[in-house]
């Protein structure tokens, strides 16, 4: 039988212009625009910015924050917030380094990375179970677990900095992806571990867009009780989410250590708000259910670039906070301005 058609329903419900529509659907375009504007401005102020080593430095500096941000993003997409990931990273990175150094000195690096991810995932599962069973917003739970994990690490596992890493970890941090000599005889290296970020981003994108779990994460972010009613297992989603973010954090921790050539258990904790800010600047709404992997990466780049051009454009130390703070406000304001147009 032929269905009755309601011809007054347009294929597209809105009557906005194409550009505004695009911006509202892909807010990361705004992030990209801001990013490009900054790069152009900095290049004009100091042409020295325009050299390949800038790109390499920015790429390398983005890895750890980028991994964190991917984890924060998928939790944000599901309507939660995580602030415990830095504690998870510090916890796994330090415990793994201790383990390798004191007990299994010849563990292959691949296994080290896998174990760190497993450890991070395990702590993430703790988060996921708590969030699911306590039925309180994940911000609250993860504030608790941040204190808990960091407290356990520093009170019971150790505080002593490990200055000479197990050799395989040190080698991993130094292994070049490519290397070249700049005009003035300096070596510029893009480390091998840089590849981890695009790989993790690709995997995250794939999970979010090509698996049922990915859609379930957004469904949860859209409306948790509806998702539950439709048959999505909230427990599975919660556990997966936090385990995945935990695994990324564990990986980020090891990379941080390897790159830094030391395992400092005091590191990382305290940077979580910056990571969340990066994700939000990448177009994900703090209330959940939206955002994209590419936007998240752009948001991270934005924060990294802003932080790494301050000296380049000659801003004195005492003024740097004012400049960064003002920038965040301007960027956020611009973001809202662009998005409001589709009102």
């Amino acid at each position: 039988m032929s269905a009755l058609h309601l011809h007054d329903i347009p294929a597209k419900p809105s009557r906005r212009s194409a550009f505004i529509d695009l911006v509202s659907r892909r807010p990361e375009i705004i992030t990209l625009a801001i990013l490009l504007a900054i790069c152009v401005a900095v290049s004009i102020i100091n042409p020295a910015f325009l050299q390949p080593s800038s790109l390499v430095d920015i790429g390398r500096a983005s890895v750890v924050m980028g991994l964190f941000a991917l984890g924060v993003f998928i939790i944000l997409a599901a309507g939660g917030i995580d602030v415990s990931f830095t504690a998870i990273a510090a916890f796994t990175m330090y415990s793994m380094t201790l383990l390798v150094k004191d007990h299994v000195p010849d563990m292959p690096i691949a296994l080290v990375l896998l174990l760190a991810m497993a450890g991070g995932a395990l702590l993430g599962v703790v988060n996921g179970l708590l969030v699911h069973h306590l039925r309180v917003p994940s911000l609250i739970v993860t504030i608790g677990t941040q204190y808990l994990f960091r407290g356990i690490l520093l009170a019971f596992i150790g505080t002593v900095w490990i200055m000479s890493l197990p050799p395989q970890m040190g080698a991993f941090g130094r292994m070049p992806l490519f290397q070249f000599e700049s005009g003035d005889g300096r070596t510029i290296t893009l480390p091998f571990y840089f590849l981890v970020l695009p790989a993790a981003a690709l995997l995250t994108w794939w999970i979010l867009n090509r698996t049922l779990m990915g859609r379930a994460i957004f469904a949860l972010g859209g409306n948790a009780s509806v998702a539950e009613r439709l048959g999505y297992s909230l427990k599975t989603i919660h556990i997966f989410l936090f385990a995945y973010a935990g695994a990324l954090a564990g990986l980020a921790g090891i990379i941080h250590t390897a790159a830094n050539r030391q395992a400092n258990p005091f590191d990382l904790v305290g940077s979580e708000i910056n990571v969340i800010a990066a994700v939000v600047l990448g177009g994900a709404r703090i209330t959940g259910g939206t955002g994209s992997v590419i936007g998240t990466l752009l948001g991270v780049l934005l924060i990294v670039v802003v932080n790494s051009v301050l000296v380049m454009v000659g801003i004195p130390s005492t003024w740097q906070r004012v400049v960064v703070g003002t920038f965040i406000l301007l960027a956020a304001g611009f973001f809202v301005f662009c998005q409001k147009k589709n009102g």
Partner: protein
Amino acid sequence: MSHASHTPLPTGAQARPFLELRNIHKRFGGVHALRGVSFSIAAGEAYHLLGENGCGKSTVIKIMSGAHAPDEGEIVLEGRSFRALNPIQSLAAGIETVYQDLSLLPNLTVAENVALNEQLVASGGRLARLFDRARLKRTAEAALDVVGLPTAPAYLSTIVSDLPLAQRQLVAIARAIATRAKMVIMDEPTTSLTRREVDNLIAVVERLRSEGVAVLFVTHKLDECYRIGGHAIVFRDGQCVAQGPLADYSKHRLTELMTGRTIDSKRYRTGAPRAEELFAADGLSLPPSFANVSFSVRHGEILGITGLADSGRNELATAIAGVTPASVGRIRIDGKVERIGHPAHAIRLGIGYVPEDRLGEGLFLDKSIFENEIALVVSDLANAVGIVDKTKGRALAGKIAQDMHLNTRDIDLPVGALSGGNQQRVLIGRWLSINPRLLLLHGPTVGVDVGSKDTIYRLVQQLAEAGMGLVIISDDLPELLQNCDRILVMNAGSIVAEFDARATDEEQLYQAMLTSRSDLATEAAR
């Protein structure tokens, strides 16, 4: 079409029922929502679950769909007995539900809302599966086509929260029929649909039945039930009080069964408006929603406004309420020109607006009846030093609760704990607290049962009697005919017709709603 492959019905209707509920009980804290409910559903039949607000209709549906577990009783599904179902079990057995709140995922696309669940159910609820986008598209297109929504890629990828309410309702229905359902449950699916969309839906239901699908309807609109036909299941106070072919019950009898009393459906309007003009809109425009709208309301007059979902009537209403102010045009109140740029201006001028979406735009669900009732007058309740006189506030809220015949006297109860009809009364009551000169009621009885409707209509008449101007924006044409003096019909952002409510009927109104602007132009040319 995708449903063509259904196994044909075993003829001889009294075969084993598809689903049977036996002595189901459900309690929520102190509320005993279902008290020993039993009924059975056969394939290919239509059922109408009728009852007043809060009698347990939605609850029994949630038990069938696996959203709630019963406290006692048994669910027999195709011969297998269950103590409780979970959503995946229910879906896998072919029970699809259109919930009263639609249960859409606002941040996902139309296609995902329609067709994603099909893949979830196919995987048995396991999430570690690939998501098949081609299949999603196919399933979504087929289902959208059936309910009469566009199937263009642009529409498929529209985010659901960008859709108007009526289309969202259709999307929810499309999801229910996207799978090879054996039973489709619809909890008040037509509340925000216009007449034409309802016609289409009825056609869809016919089709489902012909394919052997059982359909269970919940609605407060008895006329629709009769148009569809089938069986009636009547609830009162969490119990099933009657069951049988709809044809065996008159409308009057059904109402009596639901409410336990007699209510007649005559015209409520008996009074007449006064002569003086109270309110006038002069050339209001807010592109692209409506343009050059002019009308007036007299003291004591009840004006109806109707039109299709995107005729601009919603935006006109929110413009007068100051929520989305008109960009052009003037408003006069008692002859004085006023500007309404913010809801607070409207309130100061004595214009009240009861929104259609009472949960989203009206009520503070987690907060008490008391706080909800005094929300508009808190600053008036404050004394010189800025302290709110709570005693006065509580007295006011208590009086409103009484005037509105709320079924509870405990004004500290959260509004979320009330049934839909009582919630609506709380919302209307809130507006009465400012003694408005003009009250706009948008869908005042959406999802409200006959008993509550009666209460609300009587109230509306009383208010008009007292000289208040009222504007009812509604698709419920009988409601407008029963209550209004005049009815304006909007189409494509303009007022296209005006009727004297006494001298018109549903058919005329309906025709005017459908007439497109170009037809009008042709008519004018002639």
